[in-house]
Protein backbone atom coordinates (compact mmCIF):
# COMPACT_ATOMS: atom_id res chain seq x y z
CA UNK A 1 0.00 0.00 0.00
CA UNK A 2 1.03 3.63 -0.43
CA UNK A 3 2.67 5.58 2.37
CA UNK A 4 2.07 9.23 3.23
CA UNK A 5 4.27 11.46 1.06
CA UNK A 6 5.22 8.63 -1.27
CA UNK A 7 6.00 9.87 -4.77
CA UNK A 8 7.16 6.75 -6.60
CA UNK A 9 5.56 3.41 -7.38
CA UNK A 10 4.84 0.80 -4.76
CA UNK A 11 7.10 -2.27 -4.73
CA UNK A 12 6.14 -4.47 -7.66
CA UNK A 13 3.97 -7.45 -6.78
CA UNK A 14 3.93 -9.01 -10.22
CA UNK A 15 6.48 -9.64 -12.94
CA UNK A 16 4.71 -7.27 -15.31
CA UNK A 17 4.84 -4.45 -12.78
CA UNK A 18 8.59 -4.95 -12.44
CA UNK A 19 8.90 -4.48 -16.19
CA UNK A 20 6.63 -1.43 -16.10
CA UNK A 21 8.87 0.15 -13.44
CA UNK A 22 12.01 -0.55 -15.50
CA UNK A 23 10.35 0.99 -18.55
CA UNK A 24 9.25 4.00 -16.53
CA UNK A 25 12.77 4.54 -15.20
CA UNK A 26 14.25 4.19 -18.68
CA UNK A 27 11.82 6.69 -20.20
CA UNK A 28 12.29 9.07 -17.27
CA UNK A 29 16.07 9.14 -17.93
CA UNK A 30 15.42 10.14 -21.53
CA UNK A 31 12.87 12.76 -20.49
CA UNK A 32 15.22 14.32 -17.95
CA UNK A 33 18.04 14.38 -20.50
CA UNK A 34 15.91 16.13 -23.09
CA UNK A 35 14.49 18.53 -20.49
CA UNK A 36 17.95 19.51 -19.23
CA UNK A 37 19.18 20.05 -22.76
CA UNK A 38 16.24 22.25 -23.67
CA UNK A 39 16.32 24.28 -20.44
CA UNK A 40 20.05 24.97 -20.71
CA UNK A 41 19.79 26.20 -24.28
CA UNK A 42 16.66 28.20 -23.53
CA UNK A 43 18.31 30.04 -20.67
CA UNK A 44 21.53 30.60 -22.61
CA UNK A 45 19.53 31.95 -25.50
CA UNK A 46 17.56 34.33 -23.28
CA UNK A 47 20.51 35.75 -21.39
CA UNK A 48 22.96 36.03 -24.26
CA UNK A 49 21.30 39.05 -25.86
CA UNK A 50 22.62 38.06 -29.28
CA UNK A 51 20.38 38.38 -32.32
CA UNK A 52 21.15 37.13 -35.81
CA UNK A 53 18.87 38.95 -38.22
CA UNK A 54 20.27 37.00 -41.19
CA UNK A 55 19.40 33.59 -39.81
CA UNK A 56 16.53 32.33 -41.93
CA UNK A 57 17.33 28.66 -42.47
CA UNK A 58 19.86 26.00 -41.64
CA UNK A 59 19.50 22.71 -43.46
CA UNK A 60 21.92 20.73 -41.31
CA UNK A 61 20.54 21.82 -37.94
CA UNK A 62 16.96 21.28 -39.04
CA UNK A 63 17.87 17.79 -40.24
CA UNK A 64 19.56 17.03 -36.92
CA UNK A 65 16.74 18.27 -34.73
CA UNK A 66 14.29 16.11 -36.68
CA UNK A 67 16.34 12.93 -36.80
CA UNK A 68 17.59 12.82 -33.19
CA UNK A 69 14.12 13.13 -31.60
CA UNK A 70 12.83 10.48 -34.04
CA UNK A 71 15.61 8.12 -32.98
CA UNK A 72 14.87 8.79 -29.32
CA UNK A 73 11.20 8.02 -29.87
CA UNK A 74 12.01 4.80 -31.68
CA UNK A 75 14.19 3.84 -28.72
CA UNK A 76 11.25 4.42 -26.39
CA UNK A 77 8.80 2.62 -28.69
CA UNK A 78 10.64 -0.72 -28.75
CA UNK A 79 10.31 -1.65 -25.06
CA UNK A 80 6.89 -0.02 -24.92
CA UNK A 81 5.39 -2.17 -27.67
CA UNK A 82 7.23 -5.24 -26.41
CA UNK A 83 5.60 -4.83 -23.00
CA UNK A 84 2.24 -4.07 -24.53
CA UNK A 85 2.14 -7.36 -26.41
CA UNK A 86 3.76 -9.32 -23.58
CA UNK A 87 0.95 -8.52 -21.15
CA UNK A 88 -1.62 -9.68 -23.72
CA UNK A 89 -0.28 -13.24 -23.93
CA UNK A 90 -2.96 -15.40 -22.34
CA UNK A 91 -1.94 -18.83 -23.58
CA UNK A 92 0.09 -19.78 -20.50
CA UNK A 93 -2.51 -19.30 -17.79
CA UNK A 94 -3.01 -22.04 -15.24
CA UNK A 95 -5.97 -20.83 -13.22
CA UNK A 96 -9.14 -18.90 -14.04
CA UNK A 97 -10.66 -16.46 -11.55
CA UNK A 98 -13.75 -14.40 -12.25
CA UNK A 99 -14.10 -10.97 -10.64
CA UNK A 100 -17.57 -9.48 -10.48
CA UNK A 101 -18.25 -5.90 -9.44
CA UNK A 102 -21.42 -5.05 -7.59
CA UNK A 103 -22.74 -1.92 -5.94
CA UNK A 104 -20.73 -1.69 -3.73
CA UNK A 105 -18.54 -4.74 -3.22
CA UNK A 106 -16.45 -7.18 -5.21
CA UNK A 107 -17.05 -10.91 -5.51
CA UNK A 108 -14.71 -13.62 -6.81
CA UNK A 109 -15.56 -17.00 -8.34
CA UNK A 110 -13.28 -19.99 -8.82
CA UNK A 111 -14.63 -23.12 -10.51
CA UNK A 112 -13.50 -26.73 -10.35
CA UNK A 113 -12.94 -29.32 -13.06
CA UNK A 114 -16.19 -30.99 -12.18
CA UNK A 115 -17.84 -27.64 -12.81
CA UNK A 116 -18.89 -27.06 -9.25
CA UNK A 117 -18.45 -23.56 -7.91
CA UNK A 118 -15.60 -24.10 -5.49
CA UNK A 119 -15.21 -20.60 -4.22
CA UNK A 120 -17.38 -17.54 -4.26
CA UNK A 121 -16.24 -14.76 -1.99
CA UNK A 122 -18.00 -11.46 -1.36
CA UNK A 123 -15.72 -8.71 -0.07
CA UNK A 124 -17.21 -5.75 1.78
CA UNK A 125 -15.15 -2.86 3.13
CA UNK A 126 -14.44 -2.88 6.86
CA UNK A 127 -15.72 0.21 8.70
CA UNK A 128 -13.19 2.74 9.99
CA UNK A 129 -13.17 1.48 13.58
CA UNK A 130 -12.27 -2.07 12.44
CA UNK A 131 -9.67 -1.10 9.89
CA UNK A 132 -6.55 -0.85 12.11
CA UNK A 133 -5.82 2.62 10.76
CA UNK A 134 -5.92 1.44 7.15
CA UNK A 135 -9.24 3.04 6.36
CA UNK A 136 -10.79 2.47 2.92
CA UNK A 137 -8.43 -0.44 2.20
CA UNK A 138 -9.44 -3.44 4.29
CA UNK A 139 -12.24 -5.87 3.48
CA UNK A 140 -13.88 -8.58 5.56
CA UNK A 141 -12.93 -11.35 3.11
CA UNK A 142 -10.16 -11.28 0.55
CA UNK A 143 -9.04 -13.14 -2.51
CA UNK A 144 -6.07 -15.49 -2.23
CA UNK A 145 -4.04 -16.44 -5.26
CA UNK A 146 -0.96 -18.66 -5.57
CA UNK A 147 2.34 -16.94 -6.36
CA UNK A 148 4.37 -17.68 -9.50
CA UNK A 149 1.26 -19.11 -11.18
CA UNK A 150 -0.14 -17.32 -14.24
CA UNK A 151 -3.74 -16.50 -13.48
CA UNK A 152 -6.39 -15.52 -16.00
CA UNK A 153 -8.66 -12.92 -14.44
CA UNK A 154 -12.01 -12.26 -16.09
CA UNK A 155 -13.63 -9.04 -14.89
CA UNK A 156 -17.27 -8.18 -15.25
CA UNK A 157 -20.01 -6.38 -13.40
CA UNK A 158 -23.48 -7.12 -12.17
CA UNK A 159 -24.90 -3.62 -12.38
CA UNK A 160 -22.90 -0.49 -13.35
CA UNK A 161 -19.33 -0.01 -14.58
CA UNK A 162 -16.64 -0.53 -11.95
CA UNK A 163 -12.89 -0.95 -12.35
CA UNK A 164 -10.76 -3.60 -10.66
CA UNK A 165 -7.40 -2.06 -9.90
CA UNK A 166 -4.30 -3.22 -8.07
CA UNK A 167 -1.57 -0.62 -8.61
CA UNK A 168 1.23 -2.68 -7.06
CA UNK A 169 0.49 -5.45 -9.56
CA UNK A 170 0.17 -3.08 -12.49
CA UNK A 171 -3.32 -4.25 -13.40
CA UNK A 172 -6.52 -2.42 -14.04
CA UNK A 173 -9.57 -3.75 -15.82
CA UNK A 174 -12.94 -2.15 -16.27
CA UNK A 175 -15.83 -4.22 -14.99
CA UNK A 176 -18.48 -3.57 -17.61
CA UNK A 177 -21.91 -5.21 -17.35
CA UNK A 178 -22.41 -7.68 -20.18
CA UNK A 179 -18.71 -7.82 -21.02
CA UNK A 180 -15.84 -10.05 -19.88
CA UNK A 181 -12.46 -8.32 -19.75
CA UNK A 182 -9.43 -10.55 -19.54
CA UNK A 183 -6.34 -9.70 -17.47
CA UNK A 184 -3.13 -11.61 -17.00
CA UNK A 185 -1.55 -11.83 -13.57
CA UNK A 186 1.48 -13.62 -12.10
CA UNK A 187 2.27 -12.73 -8.51
CA UNK A 188 5.96 -12.73 -7.65
CA UNK A 189 5.92 -12.68 -3.83
CA UNK A 190 3.92 -13.52 -0.76
CA UNK A 191 2.25 -10.30 0.34
CA UNK A 192 -1.00 -8.45 0.75
CA UNK A 193 -1.97 -6.22 -2.18
CA UNK A 194 -4.53 -3.44 -1.98
CA UNK A 195 -6.55 -1.58 -4.54
CA UNK A 196 -9.66 0.51 -4.89
CA UNK A 197 -12.48 0.76 -7.37
CA UNK A 198 -11.42 3.07 -10.20
CA UNK A 199 -14.63 3.89 -12.03
CA UNK A 200 -17.36 6.02 -10.55
CA UNK A 201 -20.20 3.71 -9.67
CA UNK A 202 -22.50 5.49 -7.27
CA UNK A 203 -22.63 6.73 -3.71
CA UNK A 204 -20.18 4.21 -2.24
CA UNK A 205 -17.67 4.13 -5.08
CA UNK A 206 -14.91 5.16 -2.65
CA UNK A 207 -15.83 2.37 -0.26
CA UNK A 208 -15.34 -0.83 -2.23
CA UNK A 209 -11.66 -1.74 -1.92
CA UNK A 210 -9.85 -4.80 -3.24
CA UNK A 211 -7.63 -7.02 -1.11
CA UNK A 212 -5.55 -9.78 -2.63
CA UNK A 213 -3.15 -12.09 -0.80
CA UNK A 214 -0.33 -13.90 -2.55
CA UNK A 215 0.34 -17.29 -0.94
CA UNK A 216 2.07 -20.56 -1.71
CA UNK A 217 0.06 -23.04 -3.79
CA UNK A 218 -0.60 -25.39 -0.90
CA UNK A 219 -1.88 -22.50 1.23
CA UNK A 220 -4.17 -21.50 -1.64
CA UNK A 221 -5.67 -25.01 -1.78
CA UNK A 222 -6.08 -25.04 1.99
CA UNK A 223 -7.97 -21.73 1.75
CA UNK A 224 -10.24 -23.16 -0.94
CA UNK A 225 -10.97 -26.17 1.24
CA UNK A 226 -11.96 -23.90 4.11
CA UNK A 227 -14.43 -21.82 2.08
Amino acid at each position, binding site marked *: MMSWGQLGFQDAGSYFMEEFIYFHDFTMMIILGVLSYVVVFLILGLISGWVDSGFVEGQLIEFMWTIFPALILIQIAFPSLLLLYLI*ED*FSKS*FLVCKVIGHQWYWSYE*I*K*TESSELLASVDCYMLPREDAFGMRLLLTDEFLMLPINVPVRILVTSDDVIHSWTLPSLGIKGDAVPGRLNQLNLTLNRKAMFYGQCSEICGANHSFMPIMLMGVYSWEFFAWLDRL
Partner: protein
Amino acid sequence: MSSGVEITRPEGAIPLAQKYSGLSEEEVKKRIIAYNPPADSRFPNQNQTKNCFQNYVDFQRCVRLRGEDYKPCQFFERNYKFLCPTGWIEKWDEQLENNTFPVKL
Protein backbone atom coordinates in the same frame (compact mmCIF):
# COMPACT_ATOMS: atom_id res chain seq x y z
CA MET B 1 -0.02 -26.97 -17.06
CA SER B 2 -3.47 -28.00 -18.09
CA SER B 3 -4.57 -26.55 -21.39
CA GLY B 4 -7.73 -28.50 -22.14
CA VAL B 5 -5.95 -31.27 -24.03
CA GLU B 6 -7.43 -34.73 -23.49
CA ILE B 7 -4.73 -37.09 -22.20
CA THR B 8 -4.92 -40.72 -23.35
CA ARG B 9 -3.58 -43.16 -20.81
CA PRO B 10 -2.66 -46.83 -21.18
CA GLU B 11 -5.39 -49.21 -20.13
CA GLY B 12 -5.63 -49.61 -16.37
CA ALA B 13 -3.57 -46.50 -15.57
CA ILE B 14 -5.11 -43.99 -13.18
CA PRO B 15 -4.20 -40.31 -12.84
CA LEU B 16 -1.47 -39.56 -10.31
CA ALA B 17 -3.73 -37.28 -8.25
CA GLN B 18 -6.15 -40.13 -7.78
CA LYS B 19 -3.44 -42.72 -7.16
CA TYR B 20 -1.65 -40.82 -4.41
CA SER B 21 -4.62 -39.23 -2.68
CA GLY B 22 -6.74 -42.33 -2.46
CA LEU B 23 -9.79 -40.39 -3.58
CA SER B 24 -12.24 -41.52 -6.21
CA GLU B 25 -12.20 -40.02 -9.69
CA GLU B 26 -15.19 -37.82 -8.88
CA GLU B 27 -13.59 -36.55 -5.69
CA VAL B 28 -10.39 -35.68 -7.55
CA LYS B 29 -12.33 -33.81 -10.20
CA LYS B 30 -14.08 -31.76 -7.52
CA ARG B 31 -10.70 -30.50 -6.40
CA ILE B 32 -9.09 -29.73 -9.73
CA ILE B 33 -9.25 -26.06 -10.50
CA ALA B 34 -6.22 -25.88 -12.74
CA TYR B 35 -7.97 -25.79 -16.05
CA ASN B 36 -7.56 -22.98 -18.49
CA PRO B 37 -9.84 -22.97 -21.53
CA PRO B 38 -7.38 -23.09 -24.41
CA ALA B 39 -6.55 -19.95 -26.37
CA ASP B 40 -9.15 -19.44 -29.09
CA SER B 41 -7.83 -17.52 -32.09
CA ARG B 42 -11.36 -16.29 -32.82
CA PHE B 43 -11.14 -14.25 -29.60
CA PRO B 44 -7.54 -13.09 -29.29
CA ASN B 45 -8.16 -9.81 -27.49
CA GLN B 46 -9.18 -8.60 -24.08
CA ASN B 47 -12.92 -8.94 -24.69
CA GLN B 48 -13.82 -12.56 -23.93
CA THR B 49 -17.60 -12.13 -23.81
CA LYS B 50 -18.16 -13.89 -27.10
CA ASN B 51 -15.74 -16.67 -26.10
CA CYS B 52 -17.92 -17.50 -23.09
CA PHE B 53 -21.20 -17.16 -25.01
CA GLN B 54 -20.00 -19.13 -28.04
CA ASN B 55 -18.90 -22.07 -25.87
CA TYR B 56 -22.31 -22.07 -24.17
CA VAL B 57 -24.13 -22.05 -27.52
CA ASP B 58 -21.79 -24.71 -28.95
CA PHE B 59 -22.44 -26.96 -25.94
CA GLN B 60 -26.21 -26.60 -26.28
CA ARG B 61 -26.03 -27.34 -30.00
CA CYS B 62 -23.69 -30.30 -29.45
CA VAL B 63 -25.97 -31.83 -26.86
CA ARG B 64 -29.05 -31.39 -29.05
CA LEU B 65 -27.28 -32.94 -32.02
CA ARG B 66 -25.42 -35.80 -30.32
CA GLY B 67 -27.10 -36.35 -26.99
CA GLU B 68 -26.13 -35.65 -23.38
CA ASP B 69 -23.70 -38.58 -23.15
CA TYR B 70 -21.52 -37.56 -26.07
CA LYS B 71 -18.12 -36.96 -24.46
CA PRO B 72 -16.68 -34.31 -26.83
CA CYS B 73 -19.53 -32.00 -25.81
CA GLN B 74 -17.92 -31.82 -22.36
CA PHE B 75 -15.13 -29.73 -23.88
CA PHE B 76 -17.57 -26.91 -24.56
CA GLU B 77 -19.30 -27.42 -21.23
CA ARG B 78 -16.04 -27.13 -19.31
CA ASN B 79 -15.00 -24.06 -21.28
CA TYR B 80 -18.19 -22.13 -20.68
CA LYS B 81 -18.37 -23.11 -17.01
CA PHE B 82 -14.85 -21.82 -16.45
CA LEU B 83 -15.25 -18.65 -18.50
CA CYS B 84 -18.77 -17.48 -17.77
CA PRO B 85 -19.91 -15.93 -14.49
CA THR B 86 -22.48 -18.05 -12.64
CA GLY B 87 -25.11 -15.34 -12.96
CA TRP B 88 -24.92 -15.36 -16.74
CA ILE B 89 -25.20 -19.18 -16.91
CA GLU B 90 -28.25 -19.15 -14.65
CA LYS B 91 -29.86 -16.42 -16.76
CA TRP B 92 -29.28 -18.33 -20.00
CA ASP B 93 -30.50 -21.61 -18.49
CA GLU B 94 -33.69 -19.80 -17.45
CA GLN B 95 -34.07 -18.35 -20.92
CA LEU B 96 -33.68 -21.83 -22.42
CA GLU B 97 -36.39 -23.18 -20.13
CA ASN B 98 -38.71 -20.32 -21.05
CA ASN B 99 -37.87 -20.62 -24.74
CA THR B 100 -36.63 -17.02 -24.83
CA PHE B 101 -32.97 -17.76 -25.57
CA PRO B 102 -31.86 -15.24 -28.24
CA VAL B 103 -30.02 -17.76 -30.42
CA LYS B 104 -31.66 -20.43 -32.58
CA LEU B 105 -30.12 -23.74 -31.43
